[in-house]
């Protein structure tokens, strides 16, 4: 299978602490991958290494057949977009302005947004159902709406890969579902490769093609949800006993903490 992301022997240190220990990973193109693990297991650190915000101590990361450090920052932004945990709202932009910022890597120094750029931004707002918000300010909308706007901005970069860091952690269950369904739709319809860190093991199991289970900076297991989310693995990683229940509605099993 063609790899969207290929990671080999990735090691990352904060000062002297090994936060990531020899990570090897292959993310197939067009897959939906969730990274799970307890707090401090290195999920976000791994994600930030992939999007080149953090530089590995050892090992290499290949994005679409090219080493991540070889990319010019604008070229990387055309290949991969990232939705981080908390975008600042100190300065109040219109939703449309925020989404249009996603065109940054495409616009040259002395240019400004063309009609085509605006059309692309509009299309992203349609896909994320945020078009009706476009005249509102980023402060004046709800948390769930804001997260959708951030995804719209990421789509406006026209990436092949979308990374999300805890996209649903501050949202209530309605918006959690809404955001993940949106991601799934983008994954299925637009063939976007999606990698997201998540806390909710059930939602992760339900939406992901593959799950990466991490603990203490290492990958415990990687594979299809039912292969990874076993009683034994969950006990090992989260120190919690669970029951695994099959529900007819869903392909993947549900996990109930005991």
């Amino acid at each position: 299978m063609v790899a969207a992301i290929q990671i080999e022997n990735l090691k990352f240190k904060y000062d002297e602490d090994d936060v990531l220990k020899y990570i090897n990973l292959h993310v197939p193109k067009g897959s939906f991958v969730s990274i799970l693990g307890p707090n401090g297991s290195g999920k976000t650190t791994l994600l930030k290494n992939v999007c080149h915000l953090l530089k590995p101590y050892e090992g290499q990361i290949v994005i679409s057949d090219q080493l991540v450090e070889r990319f010019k920052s604008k070229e990387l932004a055309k290949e991969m977009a990232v939705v981080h945990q908390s975008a600042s709202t100190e300065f109040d932009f219109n939703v449309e302005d925020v989404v249009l910022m996603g065109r940054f890597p495409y616009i040259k120094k002395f240019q400004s947004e063309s009609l085509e750029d605006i059309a692309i931004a509009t299309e992203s707002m349609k896909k994320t159902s945020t078009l009706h918000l476009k005249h509102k300010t980023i402060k004046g909308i709800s948390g769930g709406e804001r997260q959708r706007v951030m995804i719209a901005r990421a789509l406006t970069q026209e990436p092949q890969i979308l990374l999300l860091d805890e996209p649903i952690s501050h949202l209530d269950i309605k918006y959690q579902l809404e955001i993940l369904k949106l991601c799934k739709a983008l994954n299925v319809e637009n063939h976007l490769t999606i990698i997201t860190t998540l806390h909710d093991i059930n939602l992760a199991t339900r939406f992901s093609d593959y799950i990466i289970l991490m603990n203490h900076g290492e990958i415990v297991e990687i594979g299809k949800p039912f292969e990874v989310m076993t009683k034994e693995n969950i006990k090992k990683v989260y120190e919690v006993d669970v029951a695994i229940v099959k529900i007819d509605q869903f392909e993947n099993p549900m996990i109930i903490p005991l």
Partner: protein
Amino acid sequence: MNFIERRKWNRLYIGILLCILVFVSLFAITQGSVKIPVSDVFRVFVHRLNYPNDISDIKGSHIFIIENIRLPRIVMASIVGGVLSIVGASFQAIFKNPMADPFVMGVSSGAAFGATMGIAFGLTTNLFGFGTISTLAFLGALGTVFIVYSLARVGTRISTTSILLAGIVMNSLLTSIISLVMIINQDDIARIVTWTMGSFNGASWDQIAKIVLPSLIGFVLLMLKARDLNAIVMGEEDAKNMGVNVELTKKLILIYSSFLIAFSVAVSGIIGFVGLIIPHLFRIVFGADHRTLLPVSFFGGAIFLTISDTLARSLVPNMEVPVGIITAVFGGPFFLYLLSKNKKNMV
């Protein structure tokens, strides 16, 4: 209103602000110890544009006041006000802090410190086309930015409390040293006050000629970074992943800002709060997009400082108040208001 329409409107707003600046300036020319009728002002200008109207009935001293005292003063106040304002807007963006301002952060004092050293030690030679005074002012501003920035930075976050404390202490330290140096240099107290609280008393076409080009260059350089600034204020990690070179942009903005501040302070002294008030208010009115915010703030700062300077020279009969006092009277309460509004974010 969609993006394209807004862009059109923004051009209109800039035009309107320019008109307001022209009207304010015309009014300002008529004001002062000698009141000159606005019709005379018009006739002198028309005459200067090579129109053969008769101005022989206007007193020569009035023509001199209009052309060589008040007009240069207004032009200089406009340029300095505009510069202080766009630097304030840029600082607020890269520090992601609505309370950042060249005066509050001590950067203006840094520039004044550099300039004072140059004057006190008689370094008036020309260096690379720029005067030594301006060069020293630039180094003073840059040094202060660097010190305040390093003190206020905790990891990648900038603490508002630290930035204000560091700025205030740098400010008071540097103005004290400036005053001390000037006293040792046997300057009189009035001159020290004029310099540390800002004044356009000595404005001349010569001085304007010195600051026009650097100010224009600095403005264009900042404008070229406006889109980067937009991305940065939304979050540095987000900006990096959109292809913005965040660290480089921040450094360049600090250098451009210090450059702009250096030239303004070198001709006018330390004038506070312009860069705090104008960008803040205009961000509410015109939105946060720096491609609009920078130009409107420039004209807003120009209008504000022209009005302040007119008050400074006409408020008390036969005496001139340093313009920094006027801007502080407006800016101080505004600063306190921002402080109370941001209280919960600062603890």
